């Protein structure tokens, strides 16, 4: 097996163009497992763990650009105000995995169980893809096209995820049977967007890919409207509306039974998490801005 070790993004893109069969590897926390189980035997790897361009976190105005090679441990340390993303990063594996694993890996694998992905979906993130041909930005939705399928072209690399920082509280929650180091049975990220008076909800591990819950989002935003909570955070939202919100999120899930959990439980958990996440967001809106 061949391993290419480019030292800059430019070199790496040349390798990609010349050897599209070479699989990019950064932290290796997914790929090495596949390799060890004999599920994949790529002819070649491109080691992208040393590309300085992928290790950058950049903030320009209200936009965050997160390099695809930034490990979860750094996200926790360096992006404390991106609350939902940090919460997701904390649920990833063990400390060792968080030191190696990257958001770029979550995107590249494209598994619906990738812990960072529901947050990127709730952030309405754009994925930055580069090749020797140039750079393009596509929405997370157009990038994650199916279960473990992405829109990455054979000569491209994932360079970064970027998003406009939403003004408003957000969270990420993950249900697994075990209290740590567990693959999600259901994951949910909720983000309030005060400027657009919107509520965004994204679900992981309950469908072939990351799902948004548009009906629930519309209902949630409407409920805040109705109670006057957008203007007056103290107003809150009635219990019945919270319950309905949970039901609509649960209805958006497309879960299956597998070795980790049942479809019925996954759907149920989505409803519970949604209701809790909205309740927390409403409570956090009442806190004086720090």
């Amino acid at each position, binding site marked *: 097996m061949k391993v290419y070790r480019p030292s800059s993004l430019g070199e790496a893109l040349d390798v990609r163009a010349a050897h599209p069969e070479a699989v990019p590897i950064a932290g290796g926390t997914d790929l090495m*497992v596949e390799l*060890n*189980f*004999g599920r994949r035997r790529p002819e070649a790897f491109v080691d992208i763990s040393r590309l300085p361009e992928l290790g950058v976190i950049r903030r320009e105005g209200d936009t965050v650009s997160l390099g695809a090679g930034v490990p979860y441990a750094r996200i926790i340390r360096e992006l404390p105000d991106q609350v939902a993303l940090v*919460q997701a990063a*904390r*649920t990833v594996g063990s400390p060792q995995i968080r030191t190696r694993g990257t958001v770029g890996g979550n995107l590249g694998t494209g598994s619906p169980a990738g812990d960072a992905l529901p947050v990127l979906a709730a952030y309405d993130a754009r994925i930055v893809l580069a090749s020797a041909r140039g750079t393009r930005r596509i929405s997370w939705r157009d990038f994650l096209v199916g279960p473990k399928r992405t829109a990455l072209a054979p000569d491209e690399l994932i360079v970064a995820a970027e998003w406009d920082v939403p003004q408003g509280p957000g*969270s*990420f*929650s*993950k*249900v*697994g*049977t*075990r*209290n*740590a*180091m*567990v*693959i*999600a*049975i259901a994951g949910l990220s909720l983000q309030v967007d005060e400027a657009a008076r919107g509520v965004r909800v994204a679900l992981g591990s309950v469908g072939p890919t990351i799902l948004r819950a548009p009906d629930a989002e519309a209902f949630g935003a409407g409920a805040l409207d109705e109670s006057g909570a957008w203007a007056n955070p103290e107003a809150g939202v009635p219990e019945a509306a919270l319950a309905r919100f949970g039901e609509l999120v649960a209805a958006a899930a497309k879960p299956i039974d597998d*070795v*980790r*959990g*049942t479809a*019925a*439980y996954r759907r*149920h*958990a989505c409803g*519970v*998490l949604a209701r*809790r996440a909205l309740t*927390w967001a409403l409570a956090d809106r009442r806190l004086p801005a720090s």
Partner: protein
Amino acid sequence: MPVADRAVEARPGLGVGVSAPRVDGTPKALGAFAYGSDLWVEGMLFGGTLRSPHPSARIVSIDVSGAIVLPGVRRVMTAADLPAKRRYGLDVADQPVLAEDVVRYVGEPVAIVAADTPETAREAVAAIRVEYEPLPAVTDMEAALRPDAPRVSELGNVLRHIRIVHGDADAEADVWVEGYYEIGMQDQAPLGPEAGLAIPAADGGVDLHVSTQWLHSDLWQIAPCLGLPEDRVRLHLAGVGGAFGAREDLHMQIHACLLALATGRPVKFSYGREESFHGHVHRHPARMWFRTGARRDGTLVNTQARILLDGGAYTSSSPAVILNASTFAAGPYEMPNARIEGTAVYTNNPPAGAMRGFGAVQACFAHEAQMDRLAAALGMDPLELRRRNLLHTGSVLPTGQVIHGSAPAREVLERCVALPGPADPAPGERDPLLLPGGAGNVGRGEHVRRGVGYALGYKNIAYSEGFDDSCEAVVRLECDPDGVVASVHTAAVEVGQGLHTVLAQIVRTELGVDRVVQLQADTAVGSAGSTSASRQTVMAGGAVELACSRVREHLFARAAARAGAGAGFQGPFRLSDGHVFSGDTPLGRVEDLLDTPLEATEVYRHRPTNRLDGRGQGEPHLMFAFGAMRAVVDVDEDLGLVRVVQLAGVQDVGRALNPRGVASQIEGGAAQGLGLALLEEIQLRDGHIANASFTDYLLPTILDMPPVVSDVVEEPEPGSPYGAKGVGEGSTIVATAAVAAALRAATGRELNRVPVTPDDLAGLAGPRTSAGPAPVPDVPGPRPVYEYR
């Protein structure tokens, strides 16, 4: 040599009853300890195993030509190449070394290869073509009992049936409670997967370095399959990374020896995790139907129990496991009348065998749930109901066996009740990581209910049913340039439980010597029996104590002879401060008496037990150890997630030879019991293991395992070395039942199956149901006892 440290020197000054530091602690903590997977010798080949993908199939043809032609492949073997005996097994030699005409479970070895590299071995395995004709499979333990079920074994599908009829088995009671219980298949999940290295020897024999639990049992099974006399097969213990019963059965031993002898080269096997899941036996899944009757005042009257265990495709230790499950079905309570029917069946599931708790875990889950249910029906406090019926010395068990030894069940329970509860931080100050759901950030304490549950249980120590249980030890006392040193040589296996530390403590106590060296366990000495059944502290400890006293006698005799007949001995001989004394008169320095070494070999045997008769009456067990546990749990009612807040365990240990070692065993055993209650299950789909990795076979992490507080009851067991009882299994037996009881208390749900799932706790799945007890097979009396040879 490519093996673990040949000898471990103990630290001085720490005898029996002291928390001596572990002799293997530092090397293990530093990563310097060599485990079986670290075995290496120049020029060795790597073994690989082709395993059956079918739960039941006929082998139509095997074509190895694609494998043999691969560069670097040195040998491929199938059943056609076996040189001698073709089957092996602990109790019954029914397991093929390599499958012949049929395969009976997914994972059964069909062919083996030896190659220059592990990668080549894997490629060679993949290149073997086997044509199978799938046959109907029995993968349900109740279906196995149907008359029209396909026969898994030539012997039929009933592996063993135990019938215990005690007192008036039809005795009426004022109050009856009924329950149906299920237990899933737990894996021992030792962190060190199976590994060993076979090295062909100049005498035509073979030296096998292997991680195992009983070197001689391995030897007795391996030698006939190689066609070699036992003295040409020499086993040496490689570092064992946990065992828990999984290493009682053979795995790669015969395969490595066959390939080493066939190639004339050393051959190493080292299973990965996925292969390990397929390569060893598991805990028996169980279905249990119980009726328990009591008088209005809470006095137990009658237990009617029907226990069914899935033994999988081969016998392994199922006969003894079903004996235990059956004999302990009534729990640690006086039960004047009982009818207990226990059946282990063959199925086309992976074989089940020994695992920590060995049948008592399954029984405890059922009898303790029944006690709580009975307490509710009687309107009584569950602890009070237990107190009213506890076993004690002199009690008669359902087998008719009278407990002659210590049985401090009451003291065990009361000390457990008295252990301090969890000190919780005030609400809102609690680390969210310690809420149900842990690192997942799923709640801020919403709908969290607390529950407290107790369980009490007991189990036999050492082997039962008339088995000739023994251990040999050689102790040598000599003087080297650094002074007096004792060496201990046994075949007893240190699996990580602390045996070497305890044996060194015994030697220090008996011989007054600071330096104790343990020689590597091997088959150059006599059998030590298995490191199982909580027996090795008693058995190896007993043998070492005996050998030490013999050495001491030699030493005294030498001292007396040298002092001369006229010395006028002042009283009994004793050892003190490195001198031999007679009364208060010093006869000489030990150092000076050891111009030539003194050595003694002794065999320790425990008092005989016997078999059950046709009504399940007899004296099958040697001694009993009792355990109690209290579990405190928090349950997120909406999500069905759990945080166990505290486990409080008390064990009856006879005497704690190393108190810290005992506490560690209680803690580790509790973790394994908690795992079965909440997480650990091999999920079988038509005989296939659906989660053969640690990604999906979930062991408790540090966020799942709470602090354990523990205490011991020390009431010496008469006739046992130092009065000690074994300590390895007690907490595992009660932890599962205690956690389940606490979950029931928190949720009010029935929870009659472990592992309990989030669906169960959130109310999405109801209790498991059954159409009624499985039919009792028409098999008279228990089958013959365990025959290891």
